[in-house]
């Protein structure tokens, strides 16, 4: 199929959506291979992630998209036997260089997990604790308020900041986790299926939040929900898994391009729901 003809046949809403405005590269994967012991989970992944954009990782189960995500802030270090070769560059610096402390990286590249996992402490402490352990010296009340506002949670919890965070609803808990991540002022936020444990309404609020947050942060999101990827992301990476159960990056494009005009047959089959 010819590209031009496809673009013309699109509904007007897609035609209006201009091509993604280019920004500078903030994270670069350079031939990354990730192994768990002798098992190769991901091989030859190379890609660039752009600043202030939302990049979505999609693909069938076991394709290594979460593994790649966790390698960006070295959370994989915490899994026994996980090794990485290749390079992961963050603002041009190799994150896996010998003298790099993963603790510092995780403050600059924060993470939100699949299951909402607030600390079993008060809402206030959930925000303040991360800042405190990172040596924040400032007005904590103000920090808590701005972080909660950025996560669109302030109005719901401002009267019960001392209440235990575990008493919030699932969606509120997940937004609290985002607020907690924002509070340590990272540059990048990694989200590992942040809405997969939530109901549709809570999910849509998280999606709105992601679109809001990309003004200030670079966001990388793993999702199983194709609709979510197309709604929130600027770029989409499609990962596939080969017969050895090793994941690889099949296709990486602007989201619109990938969904409307995938180059590879596998990509097309996956996004049209033929497998996965």
């Amino acid at each position, binding site marked *: 199929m010819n590209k031009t003809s496809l673009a013309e046949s699109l509904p007007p809403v897609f035609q209006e959506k201009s091509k993604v405005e280019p920004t500078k590269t903030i994270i670069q994967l350079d031939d990354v291979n990730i192994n768990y012991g002798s098992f190769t989970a991901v091989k030859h992944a190379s890609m660039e992630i752009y600043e202030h954009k939302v990049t979505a990782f999609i693909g069938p189960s076991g394709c290594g998209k979460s593994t790649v995500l966790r390698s960006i802030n070295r959370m994989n270090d915490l899994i026994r036997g996980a090794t990485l070769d290749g390079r992961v560059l963050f603002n041009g610096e190799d994150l896996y260089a010998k003298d790099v402390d993963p603790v510092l990286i*995780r403050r*600059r590249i*924060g*993470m939100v997990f699949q299951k909402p*996992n607030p600390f079993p402490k008060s809402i206030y402490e959930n925000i303040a604790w991360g800042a405190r*352990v990172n040596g924040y010296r400032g007005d904590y009340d103000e920090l808590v308020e701005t972080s909660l506002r950025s996560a669109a949670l302030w109005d719901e919890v401002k009267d019960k900041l*001392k209440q*235990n965070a575990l008493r919030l609803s699932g969606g509120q808990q997940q937004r609290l986790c985002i607020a907690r991540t924002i509070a340590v002022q990272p540059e990048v936020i990694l989200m590992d299926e942040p809405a997969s444990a939530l109901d549709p309404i809570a999910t849509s609020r998280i999606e709105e939040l992601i679109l809001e947050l990309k003004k200030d942060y670079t966001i990388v999101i793993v999702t199983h929900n194709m609709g979510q990827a197309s709604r929130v992301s600027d770029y989409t990476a499609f990962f596939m898994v080969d017969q050895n159960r090793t994941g690889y990056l099949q296709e990486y494009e602007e989201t619109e391009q990938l969904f409307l005009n995938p180059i590879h047959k596998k990509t097309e089959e996956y996004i049209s729901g033929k497998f996965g």
Partner: protein
Amino acid sequence: MQNSVSFGSEENLLSMMERRRKAGVVWQAVFLFSTSLAILFLILLLFSVIDSTFGFAAIRYEKKPSELMVGKSQLSDFSRQELEETAKTHLSSGILRRVEYEKPIADRTDKDLIGILEQYVLQPSVLRTWGLWASLTKQGEINEYLFDQGDAVLTFKSWLTIDFLFADQSANPLYAGIRTAMLGSLWIILITFLFAFPIGVGSAIYLEEYAKPTRLTRLLQLNIFNLSAVPSIIYGLLGLAVFVRAMETFTSGSLFSGVADTTANGRTILSGGLTLGLLVLPIIIINTQEALKAVPDSLRMSSYGIGATKWQTIWGQVLPVSIDRILTGTILALSRALGETAPLVVIGASTFISVDPSGIFSKFTTLPIQIYQWSARPQGAYRNVAGAAIIALLILLMALNSSAIILRDKLSKKKRMEA
């Protein structure tokens, strides 16, 4: 053929159902029986303890109370004046001098004087005691015994009294008490806690949070499990060899006081506490490890995810969540130590001391040892005293255990609600 398995006819199904239900009923009855049996034994235990703690005692006085109390029915009816006079006239000169030397008679309280008069003038001795059950059912036998003895007085006695808790050792079962043993037990538990808690929790944190699962760690873990099952008397032998003998200069305190030879020879509270500390160490380690294992990994991940270090994660997230379980486990381990007898006997706890322990370098006795020693005495009345001491020990243990439960509930409630 495999996929044509039939469930049989309707009648078959019904009769099978009957069999299945029957099997359930039988097992339920078996479980009920074993539970009842356990409860029965518990009741028997309580009964035998209570039985020996209360009951009639036949007491013979050296001097008949009626001779002492002219016209009065009991000593407490005496006026102050009369009490002092009676003491001065009836006490033998040796005892009078000793009593005056300890504290002049004029300065003593009425109650104190009555006690002295009873003990040194009336000089009661227990001829025979009856348990609560016998006291209630064998009136005839008791009366017969009294008739045979002639001058014996029958009193219904509760061997567990406030005085019993605060009195020291005595050669007369009527005046024996458990103060020294109680203080010894409390001192020992304090040392045990101070020694075993930090080391146990520290080792557990290391094994659970830091140690990589190498063959060495697994071996270590296996050994800790085995150590927790080693009979306590073996810990006693270890304590005897290490704390009492090898480290004598340290455990007897002569290292610190400069005195070369103390009477305790290393058989001190410190040695006892350290020995029991070794005994409960594996239990505390295992309990703490279980507590740490129960903390979900997602909590650690979320802590690392915002840039906390390993220690910040452990101290700020993992420990606050698990502290209630850690403390409960520790208190339960300590209450085991409180009831231990064998290792302390082996390291040479004293069985008869009337001097209160004054510090960690004192000789000591503990409640279980006291009970053991009393129940081994030939005089029957000491078995009643032992019964009273058992009740005191049980109450102490129950207080420890319930404080563990209260603490756990309080901490986990705080965790759930937070203001």
